[in-house]
């Protein structure tokens, strides 16, 4: 039996209220102080690029300072809940903007005119009218160090910095030219959306399903890293397949112990339980609330795949809804045979509770 399913997934995809710090020394290299963890998606690097873009700096002139709080990192959202890209591009964009403003001020102060008369290119701040009148970033940073005060984080820090951003800023104060930014908290959640369509073949004699075709499309604003985006969509799909078809977590009511220990019992999907290829795509429309247009993705695809697969099973079974997941071989066979094992106590299953 062929079954078709469409599912939609949503997850809030961005926070606010975090802080960003960027630093520069006389060598003119940009140091992005970044507290985003790395679960393998490298989003800490992706979000740092927002700062590099503001300052129009080549990527190999940027250092990401990360991994340990004693490296003086601002509060950044944890790498979870589909929010890193949105949240932390805002903070690093803001910190770099602050540095840019300060660069123009220093240049105007030293070379004359108003800050608005200045622009940047090729790691220099220069007059818009005459780009020979300017300073290199290294020179500006050195001047900032001489001037001190707000240029080195010793004065005029943004109000409302989180407590440990404050600590990081205090320790960095005076050690370099600083850009710092607090992202004010705002109402509401930016959404990450996915839609999945799938076609399955359900074997009514064995209760097994095979996914023939699956495509997930994400709506997450501007796509920062297509391959990373693809990984989030396919990775979520594998989770969704597990949620809807395989991963049943039972507790043993007799002995009060978990009964699905080990992978042989908890049944994480394998290569052969997933389609040979999971197709992905995205809308790529910039988000107006984010300086680089990006929003998070990650969680939504689990939801849409799980829903699409459940719907496809329902479709293959003439509309029968199990009202529980995962929908395993035994449930499908019992349904077809008309035997009921609804007596499985609900509390035994995570996804039925």
């Amino acid at each position, binding site marked *: 039996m062929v079954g078709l399913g469409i599912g939609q997934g949503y997850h809030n995809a961005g926070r606010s209220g975090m802080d960003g710090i960027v630093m520069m020394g006389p060598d003119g290299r940009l140091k992005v102080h970044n507290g985003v963890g790395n679960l393998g998606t490298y989003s800490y690097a992706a979000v740092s690029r927002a700062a590099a873009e503001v300052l129009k700096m080549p990527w190999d002139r940027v250092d990401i300072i990360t991994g340990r709080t004693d490296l003086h990192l601002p509060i950044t959202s944890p790498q979870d809940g589909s929010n890193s890209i949105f949240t932390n591009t805002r903070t690093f964009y803001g910190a770099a903007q602050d540095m840019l403003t300060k660069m123009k001020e220093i240049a105007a102060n030293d070379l004359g005119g108003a800050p608005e008369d200045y622009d940047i290119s090729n790691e220099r701040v220069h007059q818009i009218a005459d780009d020979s009148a300017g300073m290199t970033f290294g020179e500006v940073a050195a001047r900032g160090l001489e001037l001190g005060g707000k240029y080195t984080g010793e004065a005029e820090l943004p109000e409302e910095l989180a407590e440990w951003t404050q600590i990081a800023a205090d320790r960095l104060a005076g050690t370099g030219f600083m850009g710092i930014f607090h992202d004010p908290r705002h109402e509401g959640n930016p959404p990450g959306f996915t839609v999945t369509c799938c076609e399955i073949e359900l074997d009514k*004699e*064995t*209760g*097994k399903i095979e996914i023939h075709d699956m495509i997930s499309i994400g709506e997450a604003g501007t796509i920062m890293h297509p391959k990373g985006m693809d990984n989030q969509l396919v990775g979520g799909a594998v989770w969704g397949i597990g949620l809807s078809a*395989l991963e049943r977590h*039972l507790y*043993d*009511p*007799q*002995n009060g*112990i978990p*009964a699905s*220990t080990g*992978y*042989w*019992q908890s*049944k994480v*999907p*394998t*290569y*052969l*339980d997933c389609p040979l290829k999971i197709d992905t795509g995205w809308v790529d429309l910039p988000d107006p609330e984010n300086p680089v247009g990006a929003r998070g993705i990650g969680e939504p695809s689990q939801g849409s795949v799980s829903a699409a697969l459940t719907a496809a099973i329902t479709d293959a079974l003439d509309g029968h809804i199990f009202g529980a997941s995962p929908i*395993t*071989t*035994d*449930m499908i*066979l*019992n349904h*077809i*045979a008309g*035997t009921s*094992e609804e*007596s*499985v*106590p609900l509390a*035994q299953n995570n996804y039925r509770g």
Partner: protein
Amino acid sequence: MVATSHDVMPDIELYQPADEATALDLASRLGNEGWLLGGGQDTYGWLKDRNKNPSAMIELTQIDAWKGITETVDGIEIGAVTTLTDIARDPLIQSRFGLLAEAAGIVASPQIRNVGTLGGNLIQDTRCWYYRRGLDCYRAGGNICYADSPEGLNREHALFGASRCVAVTPSDTAPALVALDATMVISSTSGQREIPAQDFFVGPDRDILNMTVLNEGEILTAVRIPNTWANAEFYFEKVADRNVWDFALVNVAAAFRTSGENIEDARIVCGAVECVPRRLQDVEAAIRGRSRSDSTANAVADMATAGARPLNYNNFKVPLMQNLVKRAIRG
């Protein structure tokens, strides 16, 4: 008691006999204190969990005489420590006894097949999770069955042959070998005996602690497959939750000899429905003289599961077993 999971092996001895005589001697001396080691894929979990506590391991895989596939006058002989990968890929087995190649090729995962042996696959212990978890059930020497109780989680358990214990045979190759009328060659210091595959496996009514007839000190050294079913029409199918690493919910291994349209003789064996591979002799008899068709299959479906006594959560195995038998017959 529930054992704690240790991630390291217990401190026990290892013997690596290089020849048959030494191995048999060790097996007899060490008795139950010595754990025979094929590929170890159903060994280390037990030991790491401290749920089986032998004092030593006797590694059988260094003994070349028990390894490999050879042609004999009336069939083939497979050494008991031959790996499942070697069996699945062997041209002779593929061409003559494709049923076994298919069964061996679907066990667990590629890496497990690369080291897991035929002997180990046949003799591996049941997967009843209560027992694996180290609970003190009948099979572990206690006096309760957690699976066959009002709150038992017994989705994977037996339809047939319950006797206090309702655990099932986990092996994918066992039903294939029963269907092929194979013979098990068993050696010990006191000599050699041969047992038909069908009688090699024992249910809890006969021995609730062991799943085979092997006595202390005995080693399975080879499996012989006669040419009786060589190049017959075969059918193997395994249904498990996942397509890798998963034990059968039900599997079926079948062989058919036909002349013209009609079935002359057949073997149909199901795994994971009883503690031993379940041969369906009534069905085999009923389909003789009939064609491999829908109507034959449908006519014997109920017979395939006659006498089944489902537990709380394994009712689905009844239609599943019927359907697999039907598919085998239809071809």
